[in-house]
């Protein structure tokens, strides 16, 4: 498939999934009810406008953001198995959030996104401090994986030593769009000003695929490009994770799948991978809400159920 067919198909799928997300749920509505629900005063206004609609926008943004971060990290580390998770950003955000929930149990959860965001950024800074500006891609990835494992074990330690407070933490850690609305959407939106910056790096990210030496010879500074790309990926991931919790495997699967479909040129890959990520998370959230209503599964569990076997399949195929 080439890019000129991918984008119309992807956008059509995004539209269909969005409508499905408005129609289906604990209570299924007709298209007409959905339409009426968009205006104030209707019976379905709360379900449609306050509950389902913002959640759709959030799923699109978070899916696109995590997928774009994944594509940036894969481009910079030059490994299709890399993702923002390997930098320890998601786990760093998770640790900060769990720490906040267990030690400040009475505090308002309104601050959770800010705390998680700070945790993700600090985790990235620690990685940077350990590796330094001149570090190679592989050193960055291995250090990142080690740090991520360390943050994960800290999370386990906190949850095991504070068993009373873990319920909220567990819910958040599986990654869910449950209960998120317009407020969270507003908090997330400014971070997406980074998207055009990332797209503007496309041409240079292509050259990084040729190796540092060739990129240098073509007039690009690999170190500067790596720093800028990773900073964007870290900020976007931390922002998304701070709202929805870590949504597993999306940052790995979406860019990888998209690279298979539209190829590795970043001018096509970056926007296409955002579309894939948005569709995947919309589909996961739709399934999460409709498999066993009125009980909701966290969308993060569904992405992991699909993502983990995909990851294994990838590993087994690699020679």
């Amino acid at each position, binding site marked *: 498939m080439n890019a000129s067919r991918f984008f119309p198909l992807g956008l059509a799928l995004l539209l269909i999934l969005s409508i499905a997300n408005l129609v289906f749920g604990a209570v299924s509505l007709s298209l007409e009810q959905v339409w009426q629900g968009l205006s104030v005063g209707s019976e379905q206004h709360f379900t449609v406008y306050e509950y389902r609609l913002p959640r759709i926008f959030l799923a699109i943004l978070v899916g696109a953001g995590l997928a774009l971060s994944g594509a940036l990290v894969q481009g910079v580390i030059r490994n299709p198995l890399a993702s923002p998770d390997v930098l320890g950003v998601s786990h760093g955000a998770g640790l900060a959030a769990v720490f906040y929930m267990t030690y400040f149990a009475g505090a308002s959860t309104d601050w959770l996104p800010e705390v998680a965001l700070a945790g993700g950024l600090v985790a990235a800074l620690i990685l940077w401090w350990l590796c330094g500006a001149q570090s190679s891609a592989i050193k960055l990835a291995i250090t990142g994986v080690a740090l991520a494992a360390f943050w994960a074990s800290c999370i386990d330690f906190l949850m095991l030593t504070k068993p009373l407070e873990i319920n909220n933490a567990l819910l958040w850690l599986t990654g869910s769009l449950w209960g998120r609305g317009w407020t969270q959407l507003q908090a997330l939106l400014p971070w997406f000003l980074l998207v055009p910056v990332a797209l*503007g790096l496309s041409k240079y990210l292509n050259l990084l695929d040729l190796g540092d030496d060739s990129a240098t010879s073509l007039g690009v500074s690999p170190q500067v490009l790596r720093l800028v790309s990773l900073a964007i990926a870290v900020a976007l991931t931390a922002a998304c994770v701070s709202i929805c919790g870590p949504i597993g495997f999306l940052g790995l699967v979406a860019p990888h799948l998209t690279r298979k479909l539209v190829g590795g040129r970043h001018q096509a890959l970056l926007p296409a991978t955002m579309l894939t990520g948005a569709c995947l998370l919309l589909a996961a959230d739709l399934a999460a809400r409709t498999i066993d209503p009125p009980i909701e599964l966290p969308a993060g569990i569904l992405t992991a159920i699909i993502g983990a076997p995909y990851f294994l399949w990838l590993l087994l195929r690699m020679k």
Partner: protein
Amino acid sequence: MSLSAHQLSVGYHGQAIVKDMDLTLPDGRFIALLGPNGCGKSTLLKCFARILPAMSGEARWQGQNLHAYPSKQLSKELALLPQTQPIPEGIKVQDLVAYGRSPYTGFWGKLSQQDHQIVEQMMQQTGTYELKDKLVSELSGGQRQRVWLAMVLAQDTPYLLLDEPTTYMDINHQVELMHQLQRLNKQGKTIITVLHDINQAARYCDHLVVMKEGELKHQGSPDEVLTSAMLKEVFSLNAQIHRDPVAGTPMCVVED
């Protein structure tokens, strides 16, 4: 235009491998950098390609400090074919060759009519035009090397640096590449390549630079440089010099 070193030291982790070197490479020639392992020939090339900084002294391009020269301008004047190349995922041959045009394109990397022409021409020249819609990851080693050469040629620079381009190639591909480089040199390109095979260098190149332990030992035409005394001095080798029966160039035959 020329490439030169002035009291240049280059190395890794504070350890100089090229030491206080003074060297001017002549324009328009097909130049081989020779010497035993660890003599600093690849290190010197990497400094000229700006992958390594100068520890002291200066590498110069057209009389100016190479490392302070504007990168974008330099990428239109000096191209590098590295020794090993990564295999990018999901990239077609024609895309990879087109990446060589990056110094000339705008920020989105869109190719002009002229860019398309050059990309096509370089694929024709390297015999990779038939592969243009294939993925680079599906090619054989020899095909991939030719695609990379096409990419570097698309950069359209008067100078071309190559780091041991023949090392991992079958002999037929080595000969093919050396002929190709010779043709490019005749068209006016200055070619500077690190080589291992002294006889190969003497046969195809017209200017040899011999280094040992980070220092310049000899430079000049194959006839001037390739002597028994040089082989003894630089490689600690007892060898006789004979004429290549086909090309008439000097070649060394090792004594027992």
